[in-house]
């Protein structure tokens, strides 16, 4: 899938929400789904377990209409966070134009965050992609929880944001930071329009 088709005047973006299990990836998408007018989105597909853990992916298509003469569509995906689902997670990551990393601010999940971030970079490397060239944005979710239970944003940022990418504090249940995060990654991805065709995670066939 190409990012921009100049001849047909279409922009199509695949954004993948990554992160450890239960960090709030699906919650982000649910919030977006509820905020977007019906005519701007497709139905959300969620392949989940009976206990509502993402099993394969969530998928939310957004139709942003015609912008500067380009039909603009965003496709948002989440991946399953548990280590167990590594094989399927890799599949969903293929073809991503940008990645949003949803970190769980709870102190007891700090290690999981780090591992997930490493997992992300390992998967990208496996596909032959230089991770530094993939637009990435971090959301430190669950910042609404009691202070004793969470790590503050600065500390989280030190631990996870070794690339110095944009980050946002968030409370996905109530929607805080959700659209800011989405806007952030979208701008990074669209910035690539001025460059060559975006280097991207190779899409398999």
């Amino acid at each position, binding site marked *: 899938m190409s990012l921009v088709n*100049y001849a047909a005047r279409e922009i199509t973006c695949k954004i993948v929400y990554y992160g450890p299990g239960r960090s709030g990836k699906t919650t982000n998408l649910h919030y977006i789904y509820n905020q977007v007018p019906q005519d701007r989105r497709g139905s959300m597909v969620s392949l989940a377990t009976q206990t509502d853990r993402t099993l394969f992916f969530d998928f939310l298509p957004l139709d942003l209409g*015609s*912008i*500067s003469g*380009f039909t603009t569509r965003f496709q948002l995906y989440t991946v399953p966070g548990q280590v167990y689902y590594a094989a399927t997670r890799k599949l969903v990551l293929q073809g991503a134009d940008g990645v949003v990393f949803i970190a769980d601010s709870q102190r007891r999940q700090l290690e999981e965050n780090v591992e997930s971030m490493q997992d992300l970079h390992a998967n990208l490397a496996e596909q032959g992609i230089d991770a530094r060239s993939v637009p990435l944005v971090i959301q430190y979710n669950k910042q609404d929880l009691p202070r004793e239970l969470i790590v503050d944003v600065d500390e989280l940022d030190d631990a996870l944001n070794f690339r110095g990418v944009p980050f946002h504090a968030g409370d996905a249940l109530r*929607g805080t930071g959700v659209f800011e995060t989405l*806007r952030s990654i979208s701008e990074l991805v669209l910035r690539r329009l001025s460059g060559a065709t975006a280097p991207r995670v190779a899409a398999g066939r």
Partner: protein
Amino acid sequence: MSVLLDGRFRFDNYVVGASNRLAVAAGRAVAESPGASYNPLFIYSPSGLGKTHLIGAIGFAAKQLQPELVVEYVPLDDFVDRLHIAISSGHADAFKQLYQRVDLLLLDDVQFLTGRRETQSEMLRIFNALQGSGRQIVMASDRPPSEIADVDERLVTRLAGGLIVDISLPEYETRVAILRSKCAESEMTFATGVLEELAKMPCGSVRELQGALNRLAAHAALGDRPVTPQNVRAIVAGGRATPAFGRAAPAGDSSDEFAGFLSDISVAVAQHVEGWRVRLGERVAHWQRKGYSTAMLDRALALTEEADVDALDAAFASGVARLEQLEAQAVLLDPRLAGLDVFRDPERVAEAEARIEQAIAAHDPPPAPWPAFTIETLIAGKSNQMALRAAEASIEAPGARYNPLFVHGGTGVGKTHLVHAVGNALRRNAALSGPVACVSGSQFVDELIAALQDGTVDRWRARYRAAGALIVDDVHALAGKERSQEELFHLFNALHSAGRQLVLASDRPPSEIGELEARLRSRFDGGLVVAIQPPDRALREALYARILVDRGAGAEPGVAALLAELPVSGAAEVESVVDRVMHMARSSGGHVTMSLVRRELNAGGAATPVSVPAIADKSFLDAEKVVMEWPDLDGRVMEELR
């Protein structure tokens, strides 16, 4: 007449973009033939997007086209007021009649019909009357008919019964166009990039845009700093309400967040979609629609650096023009060549030109070997067996063994016969990539001269280049002819490197041909140079025997052997001897007998030089004359036709 129709609002000062194209088209149609197509025409859009301007333009244009048309513009609130006044003053009927005589009724802000029962029923009556008599109604509103609350069902049906069009928020390009248009109207100018920067900012309506523009103008006139793209936002932001970009969704929806997101994305896209790529994409689409392969342009799209779209397009267009030329040429030669892929790709011009060459060759083939000369009719003997073997090898594997094959020998030894025979044998080779070209040196020169005079040298060359094998007889005729040698040199290289067989004949070996360029000489020497000797005794006898039979001489057996005693220089001489002998026989009234022959040989025999009278008649040695000695009728006829 209301102020709206005084000419301020016209079609030609209304900026058309994707957001309002449909509305404008409908408006024009209505202005041109009111009552004919869309009736009523219902235009809706959020406030400040140009509805009023548009309906004003419709009214003005209609009036221009038909000055006697009764056009009335009335905002709904005014209408309501007038209606109330009319009713309360008892002139209700007059009011009705007034409105029923209007040819084109323009109603603005129709959304204010909400809850006004009386107005609604009056409106319904007026509608029925107007539409019934084919008069046009145009309405403007800030929402579609179905969303105007509390309106009589029948009226809603009426309102929605014609064409409903919306005007949406103008996209970036249209905003720029609007700003430019407004600047032109009020004769304002700004630095490059200022309007573009302003257009990038989120705005809720064209009115807001105008407001921002006014602010910029004021700043430019009164402020001390000039307006630059960098400070546009700051200037405009001072005093702007929070942006409200996004659809005018029915109130109550929390789509502000999404709306904000959407507006930011719009800005991002506008910023990052590079103009040059868009234009190049358009060119790609344009050429693809015409059926051309655009690989060359597609590659440029994928580059990081900005491409010079105009230059690329011009190059592409000239490639296309050349292809069209070539295709036209090709079709004249062979109609089946029309529409080939190669004529659809400007990167394959060279290939197309090669096709033309092939077509030319097929259409106008080079001279061919004379059919009468075949290997079978050649009599072999010791004097020519090497040449013959070499020839056979070349026939078997053209281009592989002896290339070029250079045959030389005195006049009449049979060189011409041999090389033409090779040519004919090669013609039977199906694997050959083109026709067999067989030409004499002097003919080659003549053709070249003619081509130079006509300006058709390219065609002449193409004929030979398409040949599957080339035979040049009497190549020494090119001695001293520089241009011909040059052409032959290039032709030689082209054919030789393509593995095609070259056979050359001359009366002397390459080393003895004077005024021959070294590079040609070395090439001739580079293959196999083989001589044909004058016929030996055995060959002579065989020759005599055959010729005597062919001529129906009725000679005694042994005549041939006797005649063969004398050496001759070649087959030609054999023939002339036979001629003489037969002449003698006829004049003495007898047959060709041994005794006659003996007498002849002894009488003028020793004195009669058996070899071609090289001394007596020099002209006989002339290369051209020799070439004209065709051994049989077929050859002579062909010569005459040439």
